[in-house]
């Protein structure tokens, strides 16, 4: 373990990646209705470009918006638009969504292909990425073209490809590294050209020796890309922690990676960049790890965006016992789905079903001031103090304690022996503070 790059703090949950790591990526066939929310990304929601009754082709843009921090959305199969209405989103709220009844032909619209990066300018690459509706596939779903277009006064010198996949259970990125390494490299080259730089770090955790082997093989001879092995620790894949571990630079509070000259892209995003730039393919599918003790046939599936979670679970043989909780993403930061009728979206990295006996229904006790939350917080915060402040609604004090700097990685809740729901309280406090700040601004 010694000598591997890492950050201060963090936790070591059981990996559980063995459930799905050796299962090759399979394509999920077309099933029923497709529901495509117009907001699957950080930023302004897209506006619909289609209406009820329209015929759409696979890859056709169905939602977009003028503006910078937003992303377009595309039909993930051909068929007829049956409705454009508000529908429940995986994150819980209702979002305007396009409902498509597939015609079964899965017919693509015309795609603009290129065969070499020499045929395209950096601006051309960014515009193709914008057109393809690319967002970060690691989970946060931040529009990719925004990250590639830093303001004029910020000088970028390093691209970091985040292949850490530190969330337990998830193996989507892992499979991609074993099966699509050439595409990943092509994507990285396109990203480097778009940023007009010549230095990329490729970061993998030490617990994935086969992926490390596969990627170092692919990188051989590429002197712009350097593979770096990270210590296996959660949340190693967090953007700011990764940047510090690799470059020794700390992103200042309230600033972005580009303020320290770094752009971080997830490895899945790099592969999607290759698809977008070389084949003109928009982001209409992604790899989803379907895993956990309560799914009959765990899998790494290539799933069309908009496929219902229930269809995916069905395709994987269904649950073994009654489903108590369906987690979208990993167990540390994933979201408990409000219903299984919600669709897979661009940020859905996994569908995790655990058996009832593994799910702990926390019965919080008093804080015994053990200090574990303080020791593990990768942001150097004192989560126990937020908890106290949040409980008595003293949001000013929470602000003084830098609560807004919390990234909600969940390490504090994970280690709390009294099972105190830190992240729950922190989220509540943060949204209250944001509401207050908005009010003040008005």
């Amino acid at each position, binding site marked *: 373990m010694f000598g591997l790059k890492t950050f201060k703090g963090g*936790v070591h*949950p*059981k990996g559980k990646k063995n459930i799905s790591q050796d299962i090759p990526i399979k394509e999920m066939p077309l099933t029923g209705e497709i529901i495509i929310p117009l907001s699957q990304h950080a930023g302004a929601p897209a506006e619909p470009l289609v209406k009820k009754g329209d015929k759409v082709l696979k890859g056709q843009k169905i939602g977009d918006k003028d503006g910078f921090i937003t992303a377009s959305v595309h039909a993930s199969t051909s068929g007829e638009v049956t409705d454009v209405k508000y529908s429940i989103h995986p994150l*819980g709220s209702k979002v305007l969504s396009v409902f498509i009844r597939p015609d079964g032909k899965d017919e693509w619209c015309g795609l603009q292909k290129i065969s070499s990066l020499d045929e395209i300018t950096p601006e051309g690459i960014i515009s193709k990425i914008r057109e393809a509706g690319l967002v970060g596939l690691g989970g946060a779903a931040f529009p990719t073209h925004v990250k590639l277009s830093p303001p004029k006064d910020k000088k970028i010198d390093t691209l970091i490809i985040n292949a850490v996949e530190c969330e337990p259970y998830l193996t989507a990125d892992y499979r991609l590294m074993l099966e699509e390494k050439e595409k990943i490299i092509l994507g990285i080259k396109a990203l480097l050209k778009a940023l007009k730089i010549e230095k990329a770090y490729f970061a993998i955790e030490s617990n994935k020796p086969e992926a490390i082997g596969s990627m170092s093989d692919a990188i051989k001879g590429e002197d712009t890309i350097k593979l770096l092995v990270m210590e296996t620790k959660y949340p190693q894949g967090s953007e*700011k922690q990764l940047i*510090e571990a690799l470059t020794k630079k*700390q*992103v*200042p*509070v*309230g600033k972005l990676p580009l303020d320290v000259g770094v752009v971080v892209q997830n490895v899945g995003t790099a592969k999607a960049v290759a698809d977008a730039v070389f084949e003109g393919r928009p982001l209409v599918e992604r790899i989803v790890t379907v895993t956990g003790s309560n799914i009959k046939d765990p899998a790494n599936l290539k799933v069309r965006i908009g496929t219902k979670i*229930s269809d995916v*679970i*069905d395709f994987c043989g*269904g*649950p073994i*016992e*009654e*489903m108590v*909780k*369906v987690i979208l993403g990993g*167990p*540390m*930061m*994933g*979201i*408990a789905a*409000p*219903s*299984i*009728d919600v669709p897979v979206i661009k940020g859905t990295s996994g569908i*995790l079903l655990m058996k009832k006996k*593994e*799910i*702990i229904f*926390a019965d919080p*006790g*008093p804080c*015994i*001031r*053990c*200090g574990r939350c*303080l020791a593990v917080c990768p*942001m*150097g*915060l*004192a989560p126990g103090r937020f908890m106290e402040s949040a409980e008595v609604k003293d949001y000013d004090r929470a602000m003084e304690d*830098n609560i807004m*700097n919390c990234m*909600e990685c*969940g390490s504090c*809740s*994970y*280690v709390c*022996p*009294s*099972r105190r729901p830190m*992240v*729950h309280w922190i*989220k509540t406090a943060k949204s209250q503070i944001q509401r207050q700040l908005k009010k003040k601004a008005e």
Partner: protein
Amino acid sequence: MTLQKENLSVSVSPHIYDKQTTGGIMRDVLIALIPAALASFYFFGMRAFLVILVSILGCLLSEWIFQKIVKKPSSLLDGSAVLTGVLLAFCLPSSIPLYMVFIGAGVSIIIGKMVFGGLGHNIFNPALVGRAVLLASWPQAMTTWPAANNIFLGMYDTVAGATPLAGIKLGQYTATYWDLFIGRTGGSLGETCAVALLIGGVYLILRKVISIAIPLTYIGSVYLLSSFLGIDPVYSILSGGLFLGAFFMATDYVTSPMTSGGKLIFGLGCGLLTVMIRKFGGYPEGVCYAILFMNGLVPLIERYTQPKVFGVKNK
């Protein structure tokens, strides 16, 4: 199994937890105290057992009564009252009348813990609060030490004898290192056997229940300051309640700093105060008051040892 459509639980992340629980921590500390408890039975006999038993029952009963009166849910099962009972008994002489033990237990729980709002909210170590009140109320009974007396180790005098620390005050080193190490000396029933406490302390450190920071700085600073003041340092760290205090009292989560820097300052402060009280104070032993005093400083220590926030430049 067909897909059911409702009743999905939607709690906030994370969805998995570390195995360690508050109950588990309390259990570990109690396990760590077993060697010292066995040693006390060995050296002080049935009396030690009775004092521990009465102390535990007194703590449980006073917590139960208090929570009945203020109509709060019972917290007896969290293990903290039992732990306070054992720790209080450990710093009492085995010859103390049992009604005093009972009163001490009540003071520990009610004055030391419950009036502050229960587990997690008290400022001072409850067991030490109980001990301090007993010492002020019945100084005679609290400082009459039956000598360790066991036929298997060869006979020792059965009359009350001075503790090794009281001896130091008079410039007399009455016990050998070996006596101190295995606990063949006069003293409170759980504090004399250094080796048993050390085993328990190492267990807690290995189980990651406590960090080594406080015991190390506490015992280390007692060692250094003692030798600086011309007191035999080995004798100094092995005698009195130092090991009990350093491993089990000063490390109490609730009443010690959460920050890693704070732990160092806390341990150091406890060590300096302990030696000062031993050398210059009215009592031969300073562990109890040193820890209680440092307990009061915890908020201040924490305030100046907060971790460095990620992304904030040093000013």
